[in-house]
């Protein structure tokens, strides 16, 4: 019984310590930025986490826009309101699906790769070797990846929304015969730049921070064995998906909850 209580205590303390390490690492990564030679490394990482995620983002954006147009059309046409297809597709993409689905895909595509890469660097003692050579691994390895994730994900979310709206146009207008003029003009009358687009960007910046932070910390803090790395990779995807969905509710409540 006492053992059991002691175990709970020990676990709690180790979780709090892990949170502390995560906070310190985030602090180190954010303030390790301003160095000109790091920009090269950051661009290299934007290529890895951003450009290489482009394909999956564009394809899923296209199909999600197309599916929403198809589903929305079959419901709206009963009320003779198929003109509202444009705002429906645009608002749900800009406010919710763009940031959220991008963050989930990003966690799966780029977050897991970041964790595995940094975890393996730790397991093969590359991080310790960097320290031996008086190179700060936070500055050399972690910071470029963190900033690359922060920069790439909002960009990917914007591309996702834009491609989704074009996909909705493709199905709604070209295939199902919604009037192109009403698709765009009612969308323009409904969508507000500050209310919808900027709030979506703010959401994706928050998600980018959380997903990249979790991914990098899980790699940096992984138990340096093959088992430990696989566990860390799984935890990255699970934790960041949960964090994104939970935060999304909070952000939506703050941004759109009260008129």
């Amino acid at each position, binding site marked *: 019984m006492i053992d059991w209580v002691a175990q709970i205590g020990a676990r709690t303390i180790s979780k709090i310590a892990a949170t502390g390490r995560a906070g310190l690492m985030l602090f180190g990564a954010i303030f390790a930025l301003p160095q000109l030679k790091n920009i*090269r490394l950051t*661009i*290299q990482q*934007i*290529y890895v986490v*951003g*450009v290489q995620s*482009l394909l999956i983002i564009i394809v899923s954006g296209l199909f999600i826009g197309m599916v929403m147009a198809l589903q929305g059309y079959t419901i709206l046409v009963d*009320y003779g*309101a198929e003109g509202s297809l444009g705002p429906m597709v*645009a608002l749900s993409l*800009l406010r919710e699906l763009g940031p959220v689905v991008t963050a989930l895909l990003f966690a799966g595509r780029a977050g897991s790769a970041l964790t595995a890469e940094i975890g393996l660097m730790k397991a093969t003692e590359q991080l310790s070797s960097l320290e031996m050579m008086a190179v700060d691994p936070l500055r050399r390895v972690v910071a470029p990846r963190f900033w690359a994730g922060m920069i*790439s994900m909002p*960009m990917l979310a*914007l*591309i996702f*929304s*834009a*491609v989704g*709206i*074009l996909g909705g146009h493709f199905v709604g207008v070209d295939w199902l015969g919604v009037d192109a003029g009403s698709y*765009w003009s009612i*969308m*323009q*009358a409904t*969508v*507000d*730049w500050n209310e*919808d*687009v900027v709030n979506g960007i703010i959401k994706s910046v928050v998600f980018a921070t959380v997903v990249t932070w979790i991914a990098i910390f899980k790699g940096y803090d992984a138990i340096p064995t093959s088992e430990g790395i696989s566990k860390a990779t799984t935890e990255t995807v699970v934790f960041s998906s949960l964090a994104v969905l939970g935060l999304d509710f909070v952000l939506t409540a703050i941004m759109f909850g009260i*008129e």
Partner: protein
Amino acid sequence: MTTRKTEILVGIFVLLTIAATLLLGLKVANQGMQANGDTYTLKAKFDNIGGLKERSAVKVGGVTVGRVESIELDSDDFTPVVVLSISTQYSTFPETTSVAILTSGLLGEQYVGLQPGFSFGDIENLKDGDFIEDTKSALVLEDLIGQFLFSRDSD
């Protein structure tokens, strides 16, 4: 050589993002049209504003000339005061102008319809901050049904 290729691909990524932002800004949110935004405000008191919201359109004969800026309740006589912000491009509405809350289509959004009055002789134009006197409230379905039933009973 690999860094060069990386840089080019990241450049394409950035260009794609700019293209997406332009699409969202100009084509979806129509930011370009709102940018030329010198406006002046008019106020109107209604008995009932129905489902009118902030940012609803203000239209003259179907042409959008402004937006509803804010809706408040007058603390003295408890009637809603609607503040309209109207583009200075349309600044010559006479004082006899009337204003009504209308609905676009059967299920559509409610908007404010301005009906410009005659301008002759000594009628002045509405200025910034003026109240429009002649207002017609929104139609409330329950009131309409009530009136209809009442008028049938009295027949």
